[in-house]
């Protein structure tokens, strides 16, 4: 579903991503690890057509992002690190608004059931988002993915700042999404969560993908060792 080939992008003299090749299949959660500035966000942004690669291509479902930015966006849902919504509107209204932008009209009851499917308490769905916690807002993001039946989910450090319970809830949701057949690409610093939830783990350093592992093949402590080794190299 997500197919990045030879992607290269630099900002001025700094190389953000160099010759990156990355593939995420349906039903896969790909966790991208790496230090700040390793190129994770640039990778995700290239899939959103927010950065234009100097070389290489990023494809979503076979469509080249730079050629068909709007069509590719139609297939994906992006949840930024700090998902902000319109505080004056309720969860339902926010969901209806963003769904509407991709041409999906959502009735109130559908919106509520999608939000519930994303783990939001029913009584919260009609409350103003201004009072939501970060975890609740991310659930709205997931509900958006569910409502749009997105085949691709792009997540940029979604669990940073979540308390352990909320983080675990979120992991469960991701697993559900995976089971629905979505391809999930998640940039994260959370080694534990990556090993637990991910199917595949990529480690990035200075713009390059330096390692790729199957989550099932490593233990938590192995992963940490491998990661630190790459970082110190």
């Amino acid at each position, binding site marked *: 579903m997500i197919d990045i080939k030879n992607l290269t992008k630099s900002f001025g003299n700094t190389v953000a991503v160099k010759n990156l090749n990355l593939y995420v299949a349906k039903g896969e959660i790909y966790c991208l690890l790496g230090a700040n500035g390793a190129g994770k966000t640039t990778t995700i942004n290239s899939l*959103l057509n*927010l950065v234009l690669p100097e070389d290489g291509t990023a494809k979503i479902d076979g469509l080249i992002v730079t050629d068909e*930015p*709007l*069509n590719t*966006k*139609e297939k*994906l*849902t*992006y949840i*930024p690190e*700090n*998902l*902000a*919504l*319109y*505080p*004056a*509107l309720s969860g339902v*209204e926010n969901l*209806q*608004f*963003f769904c*509407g*932008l*991709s*041409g999906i009209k959502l009735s109130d009851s559908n919106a509520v059931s999608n939000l519930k499917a994303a783990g939001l308490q029913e009584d919260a769905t009609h409350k103003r988002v201004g009072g939501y916690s970060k975890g609740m807002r991310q659930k709205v*993001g997931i509900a958006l993915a569910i409502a749009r039946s997105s085949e691709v989910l*792009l997540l940029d450090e979604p669990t940073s700042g979540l308390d352990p319970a909320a983080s675990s809830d979120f992991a469960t949701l991701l697993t559900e999404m995976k089971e629905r057949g979505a391809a999930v690409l998640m940039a994260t610093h959370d080694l534990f969560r990556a090993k637990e939830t991910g199917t595949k783990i990529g480690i990035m350093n200075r713009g390059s993908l330096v390692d790729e592992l199957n989550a099932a093949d490593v233990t938590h402590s192995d992963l940490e060792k491998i990661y630190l080794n790459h970082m110190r190299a």
Partner: protein
Amino acid sequence: MMTHIFSFEWLHFRKSGVFWGTATALPLLIGFSLFLGSERINEQNETISDIIATETVFYDNMRSQLEAIERGEAEVDAWFQNPANPLVLGQFGQAGRHIFLHPNPLAPLAAGQLDILPYYGKVTLTTMEPLRDNALENPFMQVSGSFDFAFVLVWLVPLFIIVMGYNVISSERERGTYSLLQSQPVSMRTILVQKMIFRFLLVFGIIILSLFVWAVLFGINLFNIQGLQLIAAISIYAAFWFALCVLFNLFQTSSAINAVGLTGLWVFFLLIIPSVISLIVISLHPVPSRALWITEQRAIQQAIQAEGDAIFDTWVVDHPEEFVEGDTPQFYDTWIRRFVWAQATEEREREAERQFEEPRERQAQLASRLRVLSPPMTLQAWLERKAGTDKDRLRSLEKEMRSFQQEWQEFFLPRFQRLEFFTADELTDLPAPQ
């Protein structure tokens, strides 16, 4: 897509103080300005009808006196009280006609230059006196300017627009919703433009709706071609300011910078450009001093006085048929000379008056060319023209007075020159301005 964004914008606006503030303040401001405007027009119309009534009473009175004399019921005490005498009918005391620039249908919208230039004046055989109501007005008023619809539209509406539009995108960025919006299958420009169109329609709707409702209440007729032109002008002006808002939102600047920048542009268009234009216009085409003009007028009068006899003799030679020689009353000798001199004075003064008219006209031409630099100035000038309260129209009073004076003279002077007095019947069709 459009309806979707509109409906969600509406959802936001229903909950925003900015919207309710605008939706209350704008109609109130417009209403109050139109109220003051219609009061102004009522007052003008009252002045006009009072003066016309006084004029009518005067001439009716003259006629009934003359009828009484013709019937032999009354006698004439002195020549200057004889209602058959052309001088009494056309020149003395309350005799003469007032010329008015009647208010246009759209006059309530813009007070324009009415506080500076007169809209009516009195014409007799030798005088043309614009009646300057402003001479009695507190001059501090003229410094502040009028609160009229033109002011609300030209000065205040842009500020409401700026408040509505300065942060359309920058607020998304500051709130953090920008990143989520960016990942949607709609381009940011589409969203920006549609949001702006919604706000434009909102402001535009509030203005037009309150304008028309208040206009109906105050008896201003806008259901005609002029109303349509007004709608067009308002929409262009509002669109101009919204376009500036769009421009600022295209750059990745913060809301604060947008607000400062847009306010800066407002100051630039409404305060800086006009002051620079007036500076340029006045220094390139200075109008000579009126103080010197007064002494010049006097010099002309002195010259006419000095050459008086020669001027009169020439006139008699040129117009033998307009002069009765022989045993004429003394007032005839006095006044026939005065008319000749008045005409000579008038001719020379008009010649001298050109030194003011020419630079004034050049000023106006240059100013109207430079005005395009500032849409607010252009709109103000347009509104004043539509309201008939611009300098050009108000200055035309002089021309109208002059052309009526000619008519008035043509009616009375030949009769005076031949010493043919009037009969009561003739007084029914004295010349009057249309």
